C-alpha cells in the first residue's frame, strides 16, 4: 500500500514543521514508481511529480497527521484535479439529431460502447439510431445488428458498400427522415499511424459534422496511450474519452496520460460486456485506483 510505504520514508519527519526538498524527493520516488506501475506514461509521470514537488516544498505538515499520509493525500488531490472536476455529459446538438461518433484502436470496445450508449440515452428519453461504419472487420456489421436487435434499436448499414463515408451520410439522412434525435456512428478500429484509415475517419468527421467525437481507449493500455491519443486528437480534435474494460484490475494510468496530452475529459467508462455496463466517469475513484 502506497500510504504505508511512504510512512516509513517519512518516519524521520515527525516533529518537523515543514517538508524540505529532500523529504519530498524521497517520498515522491515511491509515488513515481506507483504511477509507472499503473501505466502512467513516463514523461507524464515525470512532469506530474515535478509539479507536485514544486508545490509541496514548504507545505506545513500538520502535527497530528503523518507526513507520508499527507503527501499521498496531496498527490491524490492533484490527481483528482487533473483527471477533471465535475461530470460532463455528451454534448447535445442545438438542432437534433445529436451525432456521436466513436473512434479508437482495434479491439478497444467501440462497437460494444455504441450499443451501451444507445441503451443509456434511450433510458434518458432519446430515440437512438446506430450506424454500422466498420466495413472491414469480419462480421462487424453483423455484430452491431445483433446488438441492435437485442436492444430493439435500429441499425443502419449498406450491404456491399465499400465507402464508410457514404454509409454514414446515408445513415444520417435516414435517421433524420425517421425522426431519430440521437445518432451513434461505429467506426472500424484503426492504427493512428495508418494514413489511409486516419484520412477515412477525418472524411467521416468532415462529412457528418458529429456533435461529439468519443475516443475509446482500453483501460489496460500502456505507455503508448500518449502517442495514440495525441495522434487521434491532432487529426480529429475529439471531444471526450471513454475508458473501457474498467471492470478488470488494470490500474488505468492511461487516463492520466490521455488527459494530460489532450486536455479532453473522460466522460464514461465501460464496466462489463453487457449493454447495461456503462457508468459516468468518477475522477476520485480513478485517482485511488491509479495510486494503487
Amino acid at each position, binding site marked *: 500500500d502506497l500510504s504505508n510505504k511512504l510512512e516509513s520514508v517519512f518516519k524521520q519527519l515527525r516533529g518537523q514543521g515543514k517538508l524540505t526538498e529532500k523529504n519530498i524527493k524521497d517520498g515522491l520516488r515511491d509515488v513515481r*514508481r506507483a504511477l*509507472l*506501475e*499503473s*501505466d502512467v*506514461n*513516463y514523461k507524464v509521470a515525470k512532469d506530474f511529480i515535478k509539479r507536485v514537488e514544486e508545490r509541496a516544498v514548504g507545505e506545513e505538515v500538520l502535527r497530528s497527521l503523518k507526513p507520508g499520509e499527507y503527501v499521498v493525500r496531496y498527490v491524490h488531490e492533484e490527481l483528482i484535479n487533473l483527471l477533471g472536476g465535475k461530470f460532463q455529459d455528451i454534448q447535445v446538438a442545438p438542432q437534433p439529431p445529436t451525432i456521436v461518433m466513436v473512434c479508437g*484502436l*482495434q*479491439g*478497444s*470496445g467501440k462497437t460494444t460502447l455504441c450499443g451501451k450508449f444507445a441503451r443509456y440515452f434511450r433510458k434518458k428519453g432519446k430515440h437512438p439510431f446506430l450506424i454500422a461504419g466498420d466495413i*472491414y*472487420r*469480419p*462480421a*462487424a456489421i*453483423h*455484430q*452491431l*445488428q*445483433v*446488438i441492435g436487435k*437485442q436492444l430493439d434499436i435500429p441499425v443502419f448499414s449498406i450491404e456491399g458498400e465499400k465507402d464508410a463515408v457514404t454509409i454514414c451520410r446515408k445513415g444520417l439522412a435516414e435517421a433524420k427522415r425517421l425522426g431519430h434525435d440521437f445518432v451513434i456512428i461505429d467506426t472500424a478500429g484503426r*492504427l*493512428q*499511424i495508418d494514413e489511409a484509415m486516419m484520412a477515412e475517419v477525418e472524411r467521416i468527421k468532415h462529412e457528418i459534422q458529429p456533435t461529439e467525437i468519443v475516443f475509446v481507449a*482500453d483501460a*489496460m*493500455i*500502456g*505507455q*503508448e*496511450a500518449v*502517442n*495514440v491519443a495525441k495522434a487521434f486528437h491532432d487529426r480529429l480534435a475529439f471531444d471526450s474519452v471513454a475508458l473501457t*474494460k474498467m*471492470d*478488470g*484490475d*488494470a*490500474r488505468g*494510468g*492511461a487516463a492520466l496520460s490521455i488527459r494530460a496530452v489532450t486536455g479532453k475529459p473522460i466522460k464514461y467508462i465501460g464496466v462489463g*460486456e453487457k449493454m447495461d455496463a456503462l457508468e459516468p466517469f468518477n475522477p476520485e475513484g480513478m485517482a485511488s485506483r491509479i495510486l494503487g
Partner: protein
Amino acid sequence: IRGHTTIDDDLMEEIEELLISADVGVHATMTIIDRLQNRIKIDKIKDPSLVEGLLKAEIAALMGEGSYELDLSAVKPYVIMVVGVNGVGKTTTIGKIAARLKQEGKHVILAAGDTFRAAAIDQLEIWADRAGAQIVRSQPEADPAAVAFDAVDAALARNADVVLIDTAGRLHTKVNLMKELEKIKRVVQKRLPAAPHEILLVLDATTGQNAIQQAKLFNQVVDISGLVLTKLDGTAKGGIVIAIKDELNIPVKLIGVGEQVEDIQDFDPHDFVEALFA
C-alpha cells in the same frame, strides 16, 4: 542512448526511460539495468558505445529461442486452445494460423468456442472460409466445452491434423469465466488425454503492466505453453513480454503484424530486440 561519451547515471536513466516507455515495467527494467551494470563492472567496460550491444544481447538471451515449434508429425490431431482477455486478437490469430497450416497441406478444424459475444461465431466462420478450414459450431449460448469436445471428436473421426479452439474473451479477474476455461480444457482432455497440446495466451502489444497479471492468472488456470503478441504493426513495442518471460518463463511463439490473413510471423528474439531500440 547513443550520444554518450561516458557510462554514467545519465546513460542509465536514458536506458530506464527507453525500457519503461516500451512497457517493460519498473521491476523488469531495474533487473535488466542491474545485470547490465554488473556486466559492465565484471568486464571492466569503459566504452559507452558498447552498452547498447550488451543490452540487446542480454534481452535477446532472456527471450530465448522462441520459434514456433509445431511438431505435427508426432501428434494427430494437434489441439491448440487460444485464450486471452477481450479484444486482443484471438479470433483473428486463429484465422491466420489456420491459413498458414492449410498452406502447408494440413487439414484444419476450427472450434467456435465463443458462444457468448455478438456475432463471434459468424466472425470465425468468415475466417474458416478465408483459411480453407472446417468449422465446428453450435448455437449462441451453447456450452463452449461441448463445442470444443465436438471439434476434437470430429477431428478424430475425420483424421484432421489440427484443431484450433477459439474461446470468448474474458478478464482474468472473473472467477466464473476462468472456471469455464478450466472446464473447456478438462472436457477436451476427456476426449483426448494429451490435449490441448498447446494453450496460447494472446496479448495485445499495446497492453501495459496488466499483461503480467493476465499471464499469471491464465497460467494458474490452464498452463500457458506460449504467447502470441498481436498488433505489433502499431507503435507499441510489447515490452511486457520481457517481464513475463523473466517472471514466468513463458515464451512468445508468434506475433501478429496486421489484420490480414498473412499477417502472422514466428517470434524472432533478435528482430524483437532491434525493434525495441529502433
